[in-house]
């Protein structure tokens, strides 16, 4: 999957393996992350402190969590632009429950199924109708956004009590809880990806659908599962968000989240056209976005110019393979 170009017969063996490693999407993404972090650690005082890095990890966890699901959708050659609205929908469904009962399990029992059902609706439309996924999920984006607004009654959810926000603010042995949740979800998705037929065939669905169908790959089942997973992860992310922020604002109901999630997956090395990508991509991508955000703030870039620098760095991060390796 490294996409290494054909190398003339003279070069073989170790050299070829070396090329494969160096051009692996995970390798360039991780290298960019390390380079960026190192640069900020040297030039931005206060960046390399434990507290600061903890903060970055926590703030990146929501995007990483949603990204784990979106990443699968992108690998299958589709795109889900509704995940931001699913986050808001699950948050406004589960938020009042969390505030009223202060029970983590009840909150999860509302948020995760809501996300799951939202993803199921997306999956049904994409798998069983000829409507392209970007169009179908654009439609459901508006529907979920409207339902979330109706649920909220235009009021923010505030002051989520401590027991229900454990996943957002708690820690186990010094490790922040949201990061552990994301790592757990990553492990589960990787296991699923490698050990089930649908999971193993996912890349084929994204790379060449006609060939995959000829080989007997169950395309509809694969699409359904990836969209359900994307919705479910957005539902889980809503619980993390409720915990970290202590509430849910109606301003979350926008397009910012989904754009960050797609950027994270792309920065991590998953192709937006499908058929190429790794499970680790959303994690490195979200962390890189977190590092850039944090570093730019520490550098003291005036608040109003923040988004300009942020956008330029994101574009550089996405374009790095083209710029440095010059491969197609």
């Amino acid at each position, binding site marked *: 999957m490294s996409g290494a170009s054909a190398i003339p017969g003279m070069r073989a063996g170790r050299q070829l393996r070396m090329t494969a490693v160096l051009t692996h999407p995970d390798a360039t993404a991780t290298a960019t992350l390390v380079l960026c972090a190192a640069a900020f650690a040297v030039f931005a005082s206060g960046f390399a402190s434990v507290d600061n890095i903890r903060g970055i990890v926590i703030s990146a966890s929501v995007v990483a969590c949603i990204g784990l699901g979106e990443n699968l959708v992108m690998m299958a*050659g589709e795109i889900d632009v509704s995940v931001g609205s699913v986050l808001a929908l699950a948050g406004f469904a589960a938020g009042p429950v969390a505030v009223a009962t202060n029970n983590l399990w009840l909150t999860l029992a509302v948020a995760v199924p809501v996300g799951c059902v939202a993803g199921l609706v997306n999956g049904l439309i994409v798998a069983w109708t000829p409507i392209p996924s970007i169009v179908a999920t654009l439609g*459901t984006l508006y529907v*979920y956004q409207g339902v979330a607004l109706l649920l909220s009654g235009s009021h923010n959810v505030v002051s989520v009590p401590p027991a229900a926000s454990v996943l957002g603010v708690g820690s186990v042995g010094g490790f922040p809880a949201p990061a552990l949740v994301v790592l757990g979800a990553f492990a589960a998705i990787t296991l699923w990806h490698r050990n089930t037929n649908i999971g193993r065939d996912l890349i084929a669905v994204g790379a060449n*659908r006609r060939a995959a169908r000829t080989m007997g790959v169950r395309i509809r089942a694969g699409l359904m599962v990836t969209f359900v997973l994307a919705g479910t992860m957005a539902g889980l992310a809503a619980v993390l968000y409720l915990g970290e922020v202590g509430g849910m604002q109606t301003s979350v109901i926008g397009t910012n989240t989904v754009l960050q999630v797609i950027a994270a997956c792309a920065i991590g090395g998953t192709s937006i056209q*499908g058929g190429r990508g790794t499970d680790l991509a959303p994690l490195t991508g979200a962390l890189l976005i977190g590092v850039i955000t944090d570093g730019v703030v520490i550098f003291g870039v*005036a608040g*109003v110019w923040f988004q300009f620098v942020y956008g330029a760095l*994101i574009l550089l991060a996405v374009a790095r393979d083209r710029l440095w390796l010059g491969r197609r």
Partner: protein
Amino acid sequence: MKLPAAKVLGLVLLLAAELAVFTALSPDFLTSSNLFNIMALDTENGLIALGMAVVIASGGIDLSVGSILALSSVTMAYAVQHGAPVLPAAVVCLVTGLVCGLVNGSLVVLLRLHPLLVTLGTLAIFRGLALGISNGNGFSGFPTSFEFFGQTYVGQVPAQVIIWLLLAVALYLVVNRTTAGRRLLAVGINETAASYAGIRVGAVRLAVYGASGLFTGIASLIYSSRVFSVRGDSGSGLELLAIAAVVVGGSSIRGGEVSAARTTLAVIVIGVIPDGLQLANIDTSWQYVAIGVVMVAAIVINELFARRAAAIRRWMPWRTNRKEDTWRVSDTASDGGKQLSR
């Protein structure tokens, strides 16, 4: 029935249904002043959707239009603040839009990245420039002559609606009556084939994003004049509304077709929803649900008509199967057409 004509009919039926429902819900809805008001409010989205339709026809997408709207209005305000008269300032607004579009186009061509990712990046960059130049402050100190661009009426008709419709006609003519239009569609249908046919794909790309930027610049000028103030954070979410309009208009998101008439109709189909709900005293949160439902309904109606058109044609052997009418349908039938882009 020809396929494009069937799609227009579907949209007209949808619009008629909406008008009937909203007229039943509120007596104030079906008045000429309200309908003109809806058209005036829709003009900005209508212009942006025309640009978006061209970009999508070429097989691309432009997520940065909302930020371009903000940036071009902010640079105009900057010019006015530094003593520029109204007319040169308006030119600054249009030129900024065009330049932003050309930046998008050159990045797409040079980096060979998916346009979704490029314009995702420039969305943040243009927004950041808008916030930076305006220093996060709003500006409303325009001279009264600035009202000309967004608050002029010809009789009872708002002038911007006339501009919008004229530009839609111009786009129709360019797409259907010039070689530039044929090149655009050729690139959208099959980029490789187009380049073998001697079409400079890069130049088409550049022009397409430039056009989108210019249309957004015009929309920005009208919008700033209508609300008579400028903010660096205006226009977010416009990109999705414009894409929704193109899709409701029945154009394939995978490119290769463009219709100024259908896109314009679709903008109105979407645009009457918030106004109708408001006049009927329904919680405006429902507008998002309604937009989503209308989108899905429009796509399903289009799909039904498309299948029917193909089926009818099959039973008419004397009718030549024109390629541009049929290939899209057979394409979706054979592989489900699931690739986001080629």
